[in-house]
């Protein structure tokens, strides 16, 4: 992602901290007039429980394929869109960036709309899971389909 021109759309899974500047640089271009970015970060409280960290797990080849599919759909809807999205896996602490998306377009509306669609689609389709750790030592696999009562919990 650094030191050479990026092939777009750029989609990736990483186990290292995300280089947001490099992601933005990848979509930058003289024809671009707007770059919308989204950063997902680890929040200190979820469902009223204090969180100490999150383990992210992914089915990596399928995750990359789904992210590529999302990017291709967005470029088809907004021709000229330059998109990069990267998701981090592993153990993250509060405040760490777990996902970063950059959408560049000649105009701001497609740039912003594509960015919003990208993160919503990623959360709905890409096979990545997170296990939240709480201050009391318990942990839970987060299940967005049942957020009031997580499906698996163990102390």
């Amino acid at each position, binding site marked *: 992602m650094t030191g050479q021109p990026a092939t777009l759309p750029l989609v990736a899974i990483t186990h290292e901290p995300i280089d947001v500047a490099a992601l933005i640089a990848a979509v930058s271009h003289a024809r671009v007039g707007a770059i919308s970015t989204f950063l*997902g970060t680890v929040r200190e409280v979820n469902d009223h429980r204090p969180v100490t960290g999150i383990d*992210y*797990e*992914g*089915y990596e*080849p*399928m*995750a990359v*394929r789904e992210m590529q599919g999302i990017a291709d759909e967005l470029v088809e809807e907004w021709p000229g869109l330059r998109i990069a999205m990267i*998701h981090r896996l592993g153990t993250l602490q509060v405040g760490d960036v*777990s*996902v970063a998306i950059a959408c560049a377009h000649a105009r701001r509306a497609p740039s912003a709309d594509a960015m919003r669609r990208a*993160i919503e689609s*990623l*959360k*709905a*389709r*890409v*096979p*990545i*899971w*997170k*296990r939240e750790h709480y201050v009391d030592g318990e942990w839970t*696999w*987060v*299940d*967005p*389909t*049942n957020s009031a009562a997580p*499906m*698996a919990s*163990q102390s």
Partner: protein
Amino acid sequence: MTLPVLLFASYADAFGARTVAVPVTMPCTVADVVLAMRSIPGGEKLPARPLVAVNHAYAKPDARVSAGDEVALIPPVAGG
């Protein structure tokens, strides 16, 4: 024969494994694989209609599964 099925996150915890060998008769469907998994210890924890991927793509219950396919059960996703 037995078909290796990949497991992740809460499903891996339910079966106590990252891969389970599922007894099936080939050729079969995604629904046949899920049904066979319900009789394996841990299978009782699966939801009514778990998501399944075949060769890195979501597959419907009536999709065909062949020997050599990479089959995975996909728990509710929670990326972002």
